[in-house]
């Protein structure tokens, strides 16, 4: 690989990491409350509300059913409004985050729903309110599972960020398509795939380590 190619490679790697981490962070901050809201408003939840639950469910399903490449284009006006431009790495973070938020919300919902109802009952019985239940029961008890789900989300985002090349965001996926595939530079393709494999493995390993440390269920 030429020095220019190498520089392009490192830049692409950095772009992938930034896009993944930034959109992942946003999806965590927005998706967890959304997941909590889905669980709380569900039947038998701590703030049961059928109308809100159905509305949230419909919004989540709506976003999740649109293919990401379509969402990327459809959200251009929104992206332009938020970032000021519709091309480049920062512009890609908006649709990535918007796609990952409902995705993580569903994963978080499943994790939170798995929390033993007896624990919620116990904290209600000791005089805890809804906020206490969220803070002391739902989130801490589901934490290992929430972290495992976030790991999955991050890895999914690495894959999705490849498509962000379509709006000039760069990243490893874009590099692989333009150089490795369209210009038949097999070495670039192999290098990109190898780096992506390592990246995914590292994230998964770190996630698993964290889960093991957080899990006290024995």
């Amino acid at each position, binding site marked *: 690989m030429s020095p220019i190619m190498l520089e392009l490679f490192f830049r692409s790697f950095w772009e992938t990491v930034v896009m993944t981490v930034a959109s992942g962070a946003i999806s965590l901050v927005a998706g967890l409350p959304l997941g909590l809201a889905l669980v709380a408003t569900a039947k038998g939840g701590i703030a049961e509300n059928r109308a809100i639950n159905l509305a949230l469910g419909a919004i989540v399903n709506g976003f999740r059913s649109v293919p990401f490449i379509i969402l990327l284009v459809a959200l251009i006006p929104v992206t332009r409004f938020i970032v000021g431009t519709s091309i480049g790495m920062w512009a890609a973070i908006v649709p990535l985050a918007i796609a990952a938020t409902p995705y993580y919300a569903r994963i978080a919902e499943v994790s939170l729903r798995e929390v033993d109802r007896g624990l919620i009952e116990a904290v209600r019985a000791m005089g805890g309110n809804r906020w206490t239940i969220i803070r*002391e029961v739902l989130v801490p008890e589901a934490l290992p599972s929430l972290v495992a789900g976030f790991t999955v989300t991050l890895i999914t985002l690495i894959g999705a960020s490849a498509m962000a090349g379509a709006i000039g965001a760069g990243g490893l996926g874009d590099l692989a398509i333009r150089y490795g595939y369209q210009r038949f530079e097999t070495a670039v393709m192999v290098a990109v795939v190898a780096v992506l494999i390592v990246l995914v493995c590292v994230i998964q390993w770190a996630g698993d380590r964290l889960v093991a440390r957080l899990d006290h269920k024995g």
Partner: protein
Amino acid sequence: MSSQTLAGRPADTDSVRDAVVRLTDVRRHFGETPAIDGVTLTVRKGEILGLIGRSGAGKSTLIRCLNGLERPDSGSIEIEGREITGLSEQALQPLRRRIGMIFQHFNLLSAKTVEENVALPLKIEGWSKEKRLARAAELLDLVGLAGKAKSYPAALSGGQKQRVGIARALAAGPALLLSDEATSALDPETTAAILDLLKDINAKLGLTILLITHEMEVIRTIADRVAVIDAGQIVEEGPVWSVFADPQTATTQNLLAGIRPGLPPAVAARLVPGPGGSDAGETILGVDLSGPEAGTLLSGLSAEVAGRLRLIHGGIDDIQGQPVARFFVGVPSSAGAAAQAIAYLERRGAKVEVFGHVADHA
């Protein structure tokens, strides 16, 4: 502390002063089926009241009505003289801090250490970390788990987990402890230890305890009074020894079947109805008597039939310090001996049941 409740079955529990809990005609339906069907019940200050019933009898629903986890459809629930049925969820929260609860599956938070679990009710009350951990240490000492403060619940045995549950329930200094099948998931030895602990706490702190169970053995070990619930209704209520000595309903008799002597099947199989008449035959009697008289009943009966008495099964049990006699005997069928024995037993105040006779007892 329970001596005043031993005097006999109270005619009217509503007239009792110092009620911690007073339920009046409480009803709760799930769809068409009544889970609680008009329950009136009082829990007195300082007592251990056992509520027993089969699964689905309504006991879990009833106990959850007391801290507002379930809401009755109608009826009145007073906790320490305060009506709670109309209260909002927010208004119930401070009240729940006056009521501790322990559970069959312990319901400890797996992500918190033992001391954090015990301190949680105090955190909810807004205690500082230092104060609540000090209080948690005190309580862990009380339940015999002083060395386990920093452990996670997963590292504890079932009995230890329930001890943590008890410490947590006591943390906020409740006026009432609700126990929801607290020993049902434990082995017999651990059950005995946990019941001892509850009894100890009841004596030391004067804490009122309402426990629900499906095991008569639990009631027998720990309770002062028992209420039997069936199909959402209280079918029998009274001091434990009195209900054990003389169960009035089929429900209670069935619940007692495992721990009360019954006629051995081998004898029952050879039974012929009627008192019989032949010299070799034996009339089979079932005898129930409780109170101080019970101890001398068998020797008196033996003298009455000139020593020709055969004890088949049973004897004397001690329940809450009351001798409760229940035994099955064979007396000679001949020459009016059986009639004489029955007359003697009835004179002594015993309840006698004539099962029939067997031709001979070989």
